[in-house]
């Protein structure tokens, strides 16, 4: 007899484990299948451990600049092993936290590799042991993995993915980062602050290409000032590794090739969904052209009773998007009356480099293209008292409004702590506030958040401090 559940979640990343908890809250009997560690990439190899590393590099940066704050610090140094150890410890703590949450919610955790065998049926292979499971509903939350460059397969020695970059065996001296999305820029920032000589290569004409063009420009200048070399509209066509490093063939905008030597390479050119060997073909779940699983607004695939959430279903590839989709799918399965599809325009995106980048909604260019007549506000950190007091006077807050309706179409920020600020605008968008509501909101002084107010005021020619 197979064990029977109301719901089986395949994959325990931030999508899967959140879906499992929500379903358990709604009274379902839930099992979750994980082939590695509870919490998935996010907790163990992604969001969280990188934040731990970036905190180290940030403090290191401050220590090196202690004199700017009237402090003196000499012999500032780091021990890479201990830096990584701290990061792993943070990940470990959260991993055991998720274990506790599964227990608290009476969710059965099954370690092993799960594979759908038929509608509502799943087999988990743990070593030599096979366990058959049955469930009324199954949520596929298998996530994604780093995309490989065919000519630069990650070896963990000289060619790294994010996963190697997180547990470096040694400190790179001269680092090439291929790809300038959030992951590429974060590692570039980390290693640069830790003392490596960093080059970023980006195929598109600007770094952080999904962000507002002004943010990309600002970041390019800020990182260049920090001595990071940025090569936009540039590709890498060949990587040769040796015991001492790599030789990269770099193809510039005009087509000219040049060879450059680096100690290490980080490949951060996007991700591919994990759709292989989980039995999708056997049950008839359809992927789209880019092999993401196709779903509707509640996470339902084309097969009844099979849902999919998170990275495996397509962009944006973000943990919080996965978690929210998990909640929606769980609620739909449980027949919860208050279930609401998510507005994907309200998913914030954050990059935890120094300076930080955060945004929600449309960029100015996208808004224009969509036919909106715009009112745009931009307020610089230099106009904010708290920013100056913090010694972080670099950055801006940009808001894009529809001139006719006052809808906040998008918000784009770069600078210290903006990843914590963006949520204010996300709430504003979710509640569909207009400029009036935002203008009438009282912002605490002195805070960085005052810039959010000023930016809105600025869009209507009413900024006070600039």
């Amino acid at each position, binding site marked *: 007899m197979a064990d029977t559940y109301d719901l089986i979640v395949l994959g325990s990343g931030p999508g899967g484990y959140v879906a499992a908890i929500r379903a358990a809250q709604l009274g379902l009997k839930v099992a979750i299948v994980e082939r590695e560690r509870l919490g998935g990439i996010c907790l163990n190899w992604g969001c969280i451990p990188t934040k731990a590393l970036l905190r180290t590099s940030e403090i290191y940066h401050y220590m090196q600049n202690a004199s700017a704050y009237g402090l003196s610090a000499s012999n500032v140094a780091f021990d890479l092993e201990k830096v990584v150890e701290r990061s792993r410890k943070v990940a470990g703590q959260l991993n055991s936290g998720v274990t506790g949450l599964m227990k608290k919610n009476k969710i059965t955790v099954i370690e092993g590799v799960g594979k759908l065998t038929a509608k509502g049926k799943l087999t988990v292979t743990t070593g030599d042991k096979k366990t058959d499971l049955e469930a009324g509903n199954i949520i596929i939350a298998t996530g994604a993995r780093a995309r490989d460059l065919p000519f630069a397969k990650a070896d963990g020695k000289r060619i790294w993915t994010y996963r190697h970059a997180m547990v470096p065996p040694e400190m790179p001296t001269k680092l090439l980062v291929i790809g300038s999305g959030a992951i590429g820029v974060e590692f570039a920032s980390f290693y640069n602050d830790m003392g490596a000589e960093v080059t970023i290569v980006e195929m598109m004409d600007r770094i952080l290409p999904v962000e507002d063009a002004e943010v990309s420009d600002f970041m390019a200048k800020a990182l260049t000032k920090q001595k990071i070399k940025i090569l936009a509209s540039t590709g890498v066509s060949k990587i040769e590794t040796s015991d001492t490093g790599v030789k990269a063939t770099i193809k510039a905008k005009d087509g000219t090739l040049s060879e450059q030597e680096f100690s290490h390479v980080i490949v951060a050119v996007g991700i591919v969904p994990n759709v292989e060997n989980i039995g999708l073909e056997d049950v008839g779940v359809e992927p789209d052209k880019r092999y993401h699983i196709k779903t509707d607004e509640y996470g339902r695939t084309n097969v009844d009773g099979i849902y999919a959430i998170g990275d495996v279903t397509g962009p944006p590839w973000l943990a919080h998007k996965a978690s929210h989709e998990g909640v929606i799918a769980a609620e739909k399965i449980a027949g919860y*009356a*208050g279930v*609401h599809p998510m507005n994907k325009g309200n998913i914030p995106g954050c990059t935890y480099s120094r300076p930080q980048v955060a945004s929600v909604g449309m960029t100015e260019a996208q808004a224009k293209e969509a036919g909106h007549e715009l009112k745009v506000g931009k307020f610089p950190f230099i106009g904010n008292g708290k920013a100056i007091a913090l010694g972080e006077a670099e950055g801006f807050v940009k808001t894009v409004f529809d001139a*006719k*309706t*006052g*809808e906040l179409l998008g918000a784009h920020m770069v600078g210290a702590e903006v990843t914590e600020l963006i949520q204010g605008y996300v709430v504003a968008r979710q*509640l*569909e*506030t*207009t400029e*009036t*509501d935002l203008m*009438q909101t009282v912002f605490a002084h002195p805070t960085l958040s005052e810039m959010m107010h000023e930016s809105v005021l600025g869009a209507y020619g009413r900024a006070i401090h600039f």
Partner: protein
Amino acid sequence: MPIELKMPALSPTMEEGTLAKWLVKEGDVVKSGDLLAEIETDKATMEFEAVDEGTISQLVVPAGTEGVKVGAVIALIAGEDEDAAPAKKPAEAAPDAKADAPKADAPKADAAKADAKDADKEAGSAGSPAASLETRNAEQKDEAAAKGSESAPAAPAPAAPAGEGRVKASPLARRLAEQQGLDLASVAGSGPNGRVVKADLANAKPGGAKPAEATSAPAKAEAAPAAAKPAPAASAASPIPHEVSKLSGMRKTIARRLTESKQQVPHIYLTVDIQLDALLKLRGELNSALESRGVKLSVNDLLVKALALSLLEVPACNVQFAGDTLISFTRADISVAVSIPGGLITPVVVDAGTKGIAAIATEIKDLAGRARAGKLQPSEYQGGTASLSNMGMYGIKQFEAVINPPQGMIMAIGAGEKRPYIVDGKLDVATVMSATGSFDHRAIDGADGAQLMAAFKRLVEKPLGMLA
């Protein structure tokens, strides 16, 4: 505490109005009965009187503001011992929280209430479930009932029926609805707890109505009144030289109600030819007799009387369809269509069946005069059990009028003209007019309608019957 002066409900159906003009300014001392402002409702411009005493400390809503919701704070009055300095501006959200049904502080509410009570009494006798609602007249109940039944079982989050508490909507949805002239109360909200969000308004718009359609017939409607608004898209892009003007409150109401009528009320049309000679002769005689009293009867006055008597004679046509109930009236109140600048209004001759024709004539003259001046009280143009619309003076031979909901019928009068006519079995020339009754077929059967038309024809052709 300053006294909050709120947008009054100047009629039972009023949901919002235009603050046309302030008659006071900040710092003015006002006492009870002073005129404060002119407020334009969907039908008329009304004066708004003070009920409280004090000093106007702030005019919150500037003159000329359109779409001010009933219950919204429009001004603040500081009491005698208070500082009249401008107080803090109340949050814009306030209006919604207070939008609860027309109540107390409207100075004109009494008249409206009395009117509504009458209607209630009658509705009550007909067993209408909504009869206990005090400040609403039967018309509104009908609307609410219809709305309720529409959205009741299926929709997961039905919009609250109008007047029953505030409509939950996001600020952006509110602004968009205002800009697009949509009635939020009629939009089903998909947000948490039925909150109306931007996406819901996109669905409420008539889908892709072409400009041609929009002008001839407001395109398909999904959510009844809201959809009544034709797509505005056409104008801006049109290459034909044109002007775009904003709809007045009255024009919006006309558009909404007529669309509602044509979409929801199955009309049947019954036409009769009526010989007018006897009525014209009687009119001449009556007028010469009444000359000393300064009263002059029009043909229309006589037709109003004839219609009222016909309705009393055929009570099956003096009715109103009200969802799952039928209201049968025992009195005939005739709404008379009066064309006024920018639209049309229908003042009501109450109890025209028992009134003398001279009284009717005097009343219509007064009502029409004040209607054209925009000075009618809402109670004077609301209600009515049937309508009469006369286009004879424009030479229209015959037409079919649109029923004025929630009424059950409307009589359309064409021009009286000399026509070859069979009189006493011989071809002769007679003054003849065509009259067409439009009946709400949900409530009135064709045979009953035919009876009414026959009674009307008989009364007009043998007009002495009207004097008896």
